[in-house]
């Protein structure tokens, strides 16, 4: 990391003692990035920006929010009505959570399509799965805070899952609640943790970046950078491309925040929580629906809970389940088809999760769940061994010269 000659004297003085400027120069300017990244590579930096947006709006919400069962609902309404631009802050935070998941899910499927999890990026991938788990915990607890009907009943249903654990289950649930039902102690600890976890996410994101910068980004061809002709500096090329992607994202985000802010929400959550009245349909937020479908696909509660957690935990060992040597699905014609089947399977699971488990939803949910695990546990290991990949290009620059190749 040769320190560049900074023009500004103060910068040079600081950098000599605290090499933050060298660090930034190294990570942004010198950092060589494959020159053939497509727009699917925008979603990582987008996720980071959404995280910042969530923390910024969350801190302002927390200045006006009251974590008490008697006041929480009204305090959120006060934010909506009486706090200057409170409605804006709250709608950004509320929809930001949904957009965060959209972005991160695309980011994850990008990784699955292009084999981004393969050596030497296994730990990078695993840190990503840790971020997903932390996000899910954060979003779940955040949804409880406005203390509407879905907040309360969602929290009740989900925390109750732990009662399926043999012997100590009930005890754990009581411990989680801080009492004998979801009540004020539960709300208080959820608020505390909801404030804490995003900062843990920031920490894991930093580790994610350290791991990323060790070997640099993968690329749509899945082959390694062979020399300087294959790469370009991150800045200005990808800063420019990411900025444009951010602009497109913000247009969509603003469209929802300003013109359909309750699109992703449940009307029931505008009814204050009432432990005596169970809503006719208890559904989690949309981003949890596929897991909810897996949970309910299995008639045994304990096994259902295990399957639900396993559906995410399986991602941790994905780098070893996929036995193929070739990274990118571009050169794996069979895997490419099954990838899209998995995507459809996840949408089917989401659709089933949104509906009451009756009639054909039951069997559909069960087939979709079975297929989900089949994909990871059986298909991937076997396919990697038997599939004949297409010939790989010599280098990144070779195919990029042809205009048809992912030069976006």
């Amino acid at each position, binding site marked *: 990391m040769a320190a560049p000659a900074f023009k500004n004297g103060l910068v040079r003085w600081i950098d000599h003692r605290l090499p933050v400027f060298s660090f930034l120069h190294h990570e942004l300017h010198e950092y060589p990035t494959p*020159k053939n990244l497509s727009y699917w590579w925008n979603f990582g930096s987008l996720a980071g920006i959404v995280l910042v947006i969530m923390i910024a709006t969350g801190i302002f919400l927390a200045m006006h929010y009251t974590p008490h069962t008697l006041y929480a609902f*009204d305090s959120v*309404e006060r934010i*909506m*009505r009486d706090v200057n631009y409170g*409605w*804006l802050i709250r*709608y950004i935070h509320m929809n930001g959570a949904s957009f965060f998941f959209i972005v991160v899910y695309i980011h994850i499927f990008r990784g699955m399509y292009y084999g981004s999890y393969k050596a030497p990026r296994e730990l990078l991938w695993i840190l990503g799965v840790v971020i997903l788990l932390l996000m899910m915990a954060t979003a779940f607890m955040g949804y409880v805070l406005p203390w509407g009907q879905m907040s309360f009943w969602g929290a*009740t*249903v989900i925390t*109750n*899952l732990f*009662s399926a654990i043999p012997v100590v289950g009930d005890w754990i649930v009581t411990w989680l609640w801080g009492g*004998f*039902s979801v009540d004020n102690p539960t709300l208080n600890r959820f608020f505390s943790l909801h404030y804490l976890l995003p900062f843990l996410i920031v920490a894991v994101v930093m580790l994610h970046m350290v791991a990323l910068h060790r070997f640099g980004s993968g690329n749509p061809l899945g082959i390694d950078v062979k020399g300087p002709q294959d790469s*370009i500096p991150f800045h*200005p*090329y990808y800063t*420019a*491309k990411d*900025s*444009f992607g*951010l*602009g*497109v994202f*913000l*247009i969509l985000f*603003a*469209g929802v*925040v*300003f*013109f359909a*802010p*309750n699109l992703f929400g449940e*009307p*029931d959550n*505008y*009814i204050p929580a009432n*432990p005596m009245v*169970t809503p*006719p*349909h*208890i*559904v989690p937020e949309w981003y949890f629906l596929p897991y909810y479908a897996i*949970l*309910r696909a299995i*008639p045994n*509660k304990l096994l*259902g809970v295990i399957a639900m957690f396993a559906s995410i935990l399986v991602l941790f060992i994905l780098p070893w389940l996929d036995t193929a040597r070739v990274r990118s699905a571009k050169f794996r014609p069979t895997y490419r088809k099954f990838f899209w089947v998995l995507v459809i399977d996840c949408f089917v699971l989401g659709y089933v999760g949104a509906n*009451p*488990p*009756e009639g054909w939803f039951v069997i559909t949910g069960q087939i979709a769940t079975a297929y989900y695990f089949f994909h990871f546990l059986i298909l991937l290991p076997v396919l990697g061994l038997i599939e004949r990949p297409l010939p790989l290009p010599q280098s990144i620059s070779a195919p*990029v*010269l042809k205009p048809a190749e992912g030069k976006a």
Partner: protein
Amino acid sequence: MRRLISAVALLLAFGTAAEAAEAVKPPKQHWSFSGIFGTFDRASLQRGFQVYKEGCAACHAVTQLSYRDLKGIGYQEDDIKAIAAQAKVMDGPNDAGEMFERVGRPSDKFVRPFPNENAARAGNNGAFPPDLSMIAKARVGGPDYVYGVLVGYVPPPAGVTVADGMHFNTYFPGQQIAMPAPLNVDGVPYQDGTKATVEQQAKDVTTFLTWASEPTLEARKQMGIKVLIFLIVFTGILYAAKRKVWASVH
């Protein structure tokens, strides 16, 4: 507690109970406030407030509203003082340590018709008239549903028996509602010459209740248009910049 747990276990095992009866989807109405340029029709808001005050306030609270919020539907300070002054508000304790009643002020929350849920039930054959301040956001269908319930009173179809103290309503889930039809032709004397049909009153009061659910709706849409115009232009510039930066890369 046990019951709660088993109820939850049941929910998990069988999912949520089937909807009780065939609720009919209320038809879509045309609203002044829908669409990206939508704004509340002020005259309709004020008529709607009148309908609420004279037709619904006896049973339904709107706890999220303060009298001063009425500025948002076009009332002047003096009108608001006069409206607030019609209410009796419990205040105190005074220097002698006693609670006392005084006339309402603009800063007071709308006074509710019943001191608590039990009193409300006692006054309504055991049914609870819900707080209406969030109703347009708290129901599937929103304003269309609220309007639907208000105009949905029809004689029960042959073969349907309506329970004692209940009324048949096309759009209410289960189709039996404890609220008697709240609107009558000319039930509310409009001052501005608008004919007070049931549909007109329903439309006006629904407009008012939608505003009450989200008084910041107009501010939101107006800012949204500016933000979108800015973002579209700015993103266009970013795209041009990206093209320029990348022009030399092959």
